[in-house]
């Protein structure tokens, strides 16, 4: 007992936050140890001290029996003691080799609030918090089945972050779970603070700059993907769940698509796929057309563009690059700045970068239109990683257009398609519903079939592919 206390004092450099309290039950000495920064003194005095006061027989089993704390752990080693002490447990040292850890955690997390990064006008409004148990609870609330299986890990040499791998056993593919399980067990790092770090540790990070996992703030999203056979990784202290593996089509699907009529959703999807190509190609194609392939532009339009470019001193590529960079600076600063100052940003953005740049003769008005449609189109996607990936390819398209005209655009496009189609993560090819074509998923891509008709899961994600056996519709 003394050995443990001495070692603890030595390792923590006599940390004053660690309280060691002596107590005696019928001449038998016991020690109560806790860290006051992460424990709630209320529960210690209410449950532990008070029950100990009422215990008169100093045996280990008797204490275990009579203590009114619900959650406890029986410990045997010093390492366990150290871990549970650092996780907000109160340790009772009874005698050599018999220790009890009692949960007295202080509630350090905020409550469940509305999501801040995902906007769903119709959906459920709860979001994940920093507390992993709450997060698992939010998912469990929606899947009331024993088939929701959870594997727990402690990752990080210092942080000892609890990480949970969630999947629905009867749906998810065993190979995927085994691979993820193996990869998670291999992780050996100082600390894990966010789920994104886990993603970067288990795959080749820069092989493809498009994201292959999705971060979800809403339990709704996590549950939806669990039901498709994806796995979800939760980490303590991170309010974002990591869904993997995803394919490109997943980034075009938004929550309200699930409960709107499929014909309307199809039209929205067409717009989303259109914005994908607009935001990728517009600046590049504009550069290619106006500096190489002027013959493609109708004469009237060409004259109008030429008139606007008449006084611009830069080449079209430099002009486009300037505007692209200034928009990205604006977006970056808008993300970082507190909301009370954001009106200043919008004034600077609208007035100086739009109006004044044109009248100063630095950029042409049509370039403002090109950049505006490009950047607005890129904001239709929720995943920030996806928007950033599009930015890289947009730049490549601009360079291709500036070097070779429309020919260059075609070359970069071929490069992009090769890159995307040759990439797969956990056995799911990135362009999955389109290449290789998977009928089950094509029904929920650009075209969304009525919900009753989407009756299969993606065979790459699940071996149990039949998901819907609903009978015929209501007919009069």
């Amino acid at each position, binding site marked *: 007992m003394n050995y443990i206390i001495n070692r603890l004092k030595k390792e923590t450099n006599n940390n004053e936050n660690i309280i060691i309290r002596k107590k005696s039950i019928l001449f038998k000495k016991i020690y109560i140890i806790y860290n006051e920064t992460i424990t709630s003194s209320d529960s210690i005095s209410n449950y532990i001290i008070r029950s100990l006061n009422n215990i008169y027989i100093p045996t280990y089993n008797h204490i275990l029996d009579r203590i009114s704390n619900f959650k406890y752990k029986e410990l045997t080693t010093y390492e366990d003691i150290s871990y549970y002490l650092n996780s907000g447990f109160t340790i009772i040292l009874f005698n050599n080799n018999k220790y009890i850890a009692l949960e007295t955690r202080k509630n350090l997390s905020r409550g469940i609030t509305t999501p801040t990064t995902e906007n769903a006008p119709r959906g459920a409004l709860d979001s994940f918090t920093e507390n992993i148990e709450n997060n698992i609870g939010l998912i469990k609330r929606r899947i009331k089945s024993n088939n929701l299986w959870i594997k727990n890990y402690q990752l990080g040499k210092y942080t000892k972050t609890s990480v949970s791998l969630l999947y629905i056993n009867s749906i998810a593919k065993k190979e995927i779970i085994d691979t993820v399980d193996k990869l998670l067990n291999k992780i050996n790092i100082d600390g894990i603070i966010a789920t994104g770090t886990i993603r970067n540790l288990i795959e080749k990070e820069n092989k493809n700059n498009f994201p292959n996992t999705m971060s979800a703030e809403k339990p709704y999203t996590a549950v939806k993907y669990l039901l498709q056979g994806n796995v979800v990784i939760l980490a303590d202290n991170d309010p974002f769940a990591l869904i993997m593996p995803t394919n490109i089509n997943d980034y075009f699907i938004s929550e309200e698509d699930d409960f709107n009529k499929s014909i309307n959703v199809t039209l929205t999807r067409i717009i989303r796929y259109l914005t994908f190509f607009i935001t990728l190609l517009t600046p590049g194609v504009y550069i290619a057309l*106006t*500096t*190489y392939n*002027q*013959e493609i532009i109708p*004469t*009237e339009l*060409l*004259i*109008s*563009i*030429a*008139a*606007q*470019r*008449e*006084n*611009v001193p830069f*080449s*079209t590529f430099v002009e486009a690059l300037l505007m692209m960079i200034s928009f990205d600076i604006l977006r970056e600063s808008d993300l970082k700045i507190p909301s009370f100052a954001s009106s200043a940003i919008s004034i600077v953005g609208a007035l100086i970068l739009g109006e004044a740049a044109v009248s100063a003769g630095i950029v042409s008005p049509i370039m403002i239109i090109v950049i505006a449609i490009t950047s607005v189109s890129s904001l239709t996607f929720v995943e920030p990683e996806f928007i950033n990936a599009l930015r890289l390819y947009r730049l490549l398209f601009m360079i291709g257009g*500036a*070097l*070779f*005209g429309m020919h*260059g655009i075609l070359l970069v496009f071929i490069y992009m398609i090769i890159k995307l189609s040759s990439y797969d993560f956990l056995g799911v090819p990135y362009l999955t519903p389109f290449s290789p074509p998977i009928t089950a998923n094509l029904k929920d891509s650009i075209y969304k079939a009525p919900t009753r008709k989407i009756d299969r899961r993606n065979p790459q994600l699940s071996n149990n592919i039949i998901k819907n056996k609903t009978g015929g519709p209501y007919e009069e």
Partner: protein
Amino acid sequence: MKSKTLLLIVIILLLTGCYDHKELNKIAILTATEINKNNDEFIINAEVVNPQSPDKTTYIQAPFIIYTGKGKTISEAYRQIKLSSSRYLYPDHLSILIINEKIAKEDITEIFDFYLRNPSVRTEFNVLIGKNEDILSLTTPIDKLSSSSILESIKTNNQYQGITNLVTLDDMSIMYLNPHKEIILPSIKIENDNKDSDNIKNTEDTKIDSTYKLSNLAVFKGNKLQGYLTDDESITYNLITNNVKNSIITYECDKNKYLTAEIITSSSKIKPKNNEINIDINISTVINESNCNIELNNAKTIKQLEKELSSYLKEKTEKNINNIRKKYNSDIFGFLDEIYKHDYKTYQKVKNNWYNQEFKNIKININSQINIIGKGNIMEGNNEKN
């Protein structure tokens, strides 16, 4: 290995990129060219767009500039223009080529070679015969560029009247290279050409002094201009060659009373058979205007009217074809081509003295069929008030 590949790619990009890079404010957009000839020298008027930003309205420049160059060949003349222009003459947007009558009367093939040989020129621009000189410098209202104004009016006319015809350089070379066909080209002239016609002042009045006017189709034989068709003959030509989109037939149904039928659809077919040429013309019309006392709500009278119109059209067409044959002796309809395609035996008989004898004398049967598919909102004709 990987870095070597990367280096190669970068080198390829740097060595081959940008070879035909041209910024929009470094090029002069050539939209139309007019070619004339004087003392064995080509004179070229090139219309170049003068782009003006829409917000600078304080002083008005002309919307286009005419550069003139002279030379023994067309390319020499074009090069000379570059002496007086600050920018590279960008030919891909050339939409109109006006060839002066003088060249057309001598030898139109002189201008072919340059435009067909040069890979940077698209051969889809329209070719016209200019009856005056200096047509392009005319300022036009509404459509600021004279070239686009001319082009649009040819298109509109072809669509709604059927007197002119759109002929691109491609079409023209195909007509020329076909040994059984002759070239036909639209023509244009300026009316009331005066001192102000190339000034912006020309467009300031509501009654514009000098305007261009689309003229009739020019008939060629071989490489020489023979003359121009009349309006009626032009419509006949377009009807037979299936070029009419929309036109009208005016028919004298009573003494000094006229009826106008609008052609909605028309199709015609030339069928050579046994030394004769049969032409089927099928037309659907809608009565546009009727000043005659015809009961249009009566099926019988409509039948009757259809018959009358058909025979009128037949008569007119026959007359026009015979006129063209007599006046120009030029096979613009491509009768020999049809014989060549469908009746090779006859072709071998007639090909040697086609123009000497056969073309003038070959029998042409016209079978015209007019259907009235609409009578308009008013049922009856212009009856006298009882």
